């Protein structure tokens, strides 16, 4: 290491201007970050001693997005590229008659969810980017179907976001059933933050709530508002790629990608506005401001926010007895920092954050299987099982 050279008086004006430019750039960025925005707290902890081992149960996957555990121990895995894999007895079979995906940017075959009464009715729910309808481009679609001899049969398109657009980012995609038997799902703002998230007459930047057959329940918040998209449950979201039902309260928790900084955890409530892009703790990728506001009347504050962004994907609560120390904790995958975040919640706050499986790769999804084990979907690797010591 060499000592930095002290500033020498008598530098020519060119050097002074050069130095000012060098110093000015980071200062400008720092100023663009909003006042009072905290760095991620509490600071994440990487324990010295690991209390678990990992085992790759499904190797050789590219971008595994959805995981669904079928009765009998087999598993469905969706690859972003459009392949639906049935993994059974150590063997991968590509499911046939999967709906055609609109292959662009962040779109693809995305989440999977089983009906809460799957054993009785066999319904499997899928989200994917689709060119269905008119107009160039695509938008997020929700479909249900049944698996029969490794084919998707009885396909029913339940919802399709409009309009189609060739913009690549922000399809959302996560699916979850609530205790009310309703299907909740997310559609991202489709990279049109000025028009979509704050307008309930438009798709995008929303959490939706429909019956298991796709029809809109009478008690949805905007059913009586003319022109509104009646399936909307909450709005002002950016790109939610994590959704999980809280095991005790039954609330639907989501997390969403912020811009640069400002990833959020939100507990979604009927008809509420989560603020994007009117309020955010993030800034533009370029370092410029989006808004001066982090809070406004009529808009919900996040349960938690990350600055800098961790790029969250996948969300699960630990309920199993296999991890007594982790019971009730929230797990969130990080695409950018390539670990799984374990969050301990106390008094409605995140009291402790810990890094699990550090440097494992881009974590796209996390779920607790019916066997009680935690399964992590890692890009370029596969499905990893976390086994406690």
């Amino acid at each position: 290491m060499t000592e930095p050279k002290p500033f020498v008086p008598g530098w020519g004006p060119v050097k002074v201007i050069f130095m000012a430019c060098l110093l000015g750039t980071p200062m400008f960025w720092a100023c663009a970050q909003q006042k009072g925005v905290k760095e991620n707290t509490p600071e994440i902890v990487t324990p010295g001693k690991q209390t678990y081992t990992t085992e790759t149960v499904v190797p050789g996957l590219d971008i595994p997005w959805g995981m669904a555990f079928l009765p009998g121990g087999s598993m469905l895995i969706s690859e972003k590229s459009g392949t639906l894999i049935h993994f059974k007895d150590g063997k991968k079979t590509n499911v046939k008659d999967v709906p055609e995906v609109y292959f662009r940017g962040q779109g693809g075959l995305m989440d999977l969810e089983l009906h809460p009464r799957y054993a009785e009715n066999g319904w499997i729910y899928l989200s994917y980017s689709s060119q269905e309808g008119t107009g160039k481009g695509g938008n997020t679609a929700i479909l249900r179907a049944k698996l029969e001899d490794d084919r998707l049969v009885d396909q029913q398109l339940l919802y399709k976001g409009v309009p189609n657009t060739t913009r690549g980012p922000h399809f959302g995609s996560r699916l979850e059933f609530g205790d009310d038997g309703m299907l909740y799902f997310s559609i991202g703002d489709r990279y049109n933050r000025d028009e979509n998230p704050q307008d309930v007459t438009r798709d995008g930047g929303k959490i939706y709530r429909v019956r298991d057959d796709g029809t809109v329940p009478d008690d949805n918040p905007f059913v009586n508002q003319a022109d509104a998209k009646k399936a909307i449950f909450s709005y002002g979201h950016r790109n939610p790629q994590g959704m999980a039902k809280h095991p005790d309260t039954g609330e639907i928790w989501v997390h969403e990608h912020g811009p640069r900084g400002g990833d959020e955890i939100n507990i979604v409530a009927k008809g509420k506005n989560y603020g994007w892009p009117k309020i955010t703790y993030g800034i533009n990728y370029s370092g410029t401001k989006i808004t001066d506001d982090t809070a406004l009347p009529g808009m919900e504050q996040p349960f938690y926010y990350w600055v800098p962004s961790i790029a969250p994907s996948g969300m699960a609560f630990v309920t199993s007895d296999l991890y007594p120390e982790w019971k009730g904790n929230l797990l969130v995958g990080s695409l950018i920092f390539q670990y799984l975040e374990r969050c301990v919640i106390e008094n409605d706050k995140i009291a402790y954050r810990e890094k699990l499986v550090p440097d494992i790769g881009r974590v796209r999804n996390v779920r607790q299987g019916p066997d009680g084990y935690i399964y992590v979907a890692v890009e370029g690797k596969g499905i990893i099982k976390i086994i406690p010591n």
Partner: protein
Amino acid sequence: MKEANLLLSCLALAFVGLVVMQSFKNRDINVTKDHLQPSALEASIQRGSVIYEGFCARCHMPSGEGVKSAFPPLAQSDYLLEKREESIRAVKYGQRGEIVVNGVTYNSIMSPMGLTNEEVADVMNYILNSWGNKSDAMVTVEEVAKVKKQTE
């Protein structure tokens, strides 16, 4: 006589100022503006900047610096500047497996973005001529069309 000298000096100063301003204006894209109509390369770079923002900037960052140990840099990237065909292939079909960029090994997956050949050419021209990168040889739609998926 004195007035003529002053006038000449002013003109000279104005000229220098104009040249400086012009060079500043072009510093981001490193293209010399020698006529009023944007050249085919300039137009492609302009279109490519929009593609870059929507499809690439999240991982490679707005100034092409990448993310340490996850996403390789594009700014001053030896891989991008020296391996033209491989770079086009990566943008067109995605990238997987180890690559070495500026001496650092990366092993992430970049999924294919579903871009048209024209969009691939545009974004290649943008990244080849931004953040200090420079390439006079324009990437054309025909060149992109010829790049085939690698059979492993």
